[in-house]
């Protein structure tokens, strides 16, 4: 599967969009805080970093689960069927 990053034309699910925007804004907010010496800022930076790691691990797990389901479905498709031709045209 291609790992190229490109904006999709269809609108994304609202929850995913909100999570993404929230997380990216948090990441941006961390950068100046890392250089500061204030204790509370370091504590909040640690929490945001932990949340980021957990979120990425969850995304990786979801990709693995969906890939497994996709593999099972692909195995059940007849190679000579027109659906297989459609899938090949999508993936090639």
């Amino acid at each position: 599967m291609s790992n190229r990053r490109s904006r999709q034309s269809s609108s994304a699910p609202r929850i995913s969009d909100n999570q993404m925007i929230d997380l990216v804004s948090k990441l941006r907010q961390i950068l100046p805080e890392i250089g500061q010496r204030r204790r509370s800022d370091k504590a909040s930076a640690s929490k945001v970093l932990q949340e980021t790691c957990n979120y990425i691990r969850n995304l990786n797990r979801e990709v693995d689960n969906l890939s497994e389901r996709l593999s099972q479905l692909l195995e059940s498709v007849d190679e000579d069927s027109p659906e297989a031709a459609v899938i090949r045209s999508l993936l090639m």
Partner: protein
Amino acid sequence: MEETLATPDATRRSLSPSCSATVKSRAAGFERRTKRRLSETNASVREDREEAEEEEDEVKEKIEALQRIIPGGAALGVDALFEETAGYILSLQCQIKTIKVLTSFLQRIDQEDMKFGG
């Protein structure tokens, strides 16, 4: 106490042994009190430093964990690591959407096959 310690003018000109002892005793007390205050100050500074170092270590540990789960993250500095993290999250979300579209397409085929008895 102070009035008792006050010395007449006649005695001030020459330091008697008892007066000298009194001066030494007061100096010793002052040194003890000063040392105690300095010791307390040093302890407070040490506690603050240890706490700050502990929090810095925690943040550093989290950054290292993030470097481990981001592809190629071990070689990145903090700024580049965060940009790569945001990009990686977007990439994973696109992968999830793509796989969901393919999965729903294949499931629809299965349902149609059942419907037509194929």
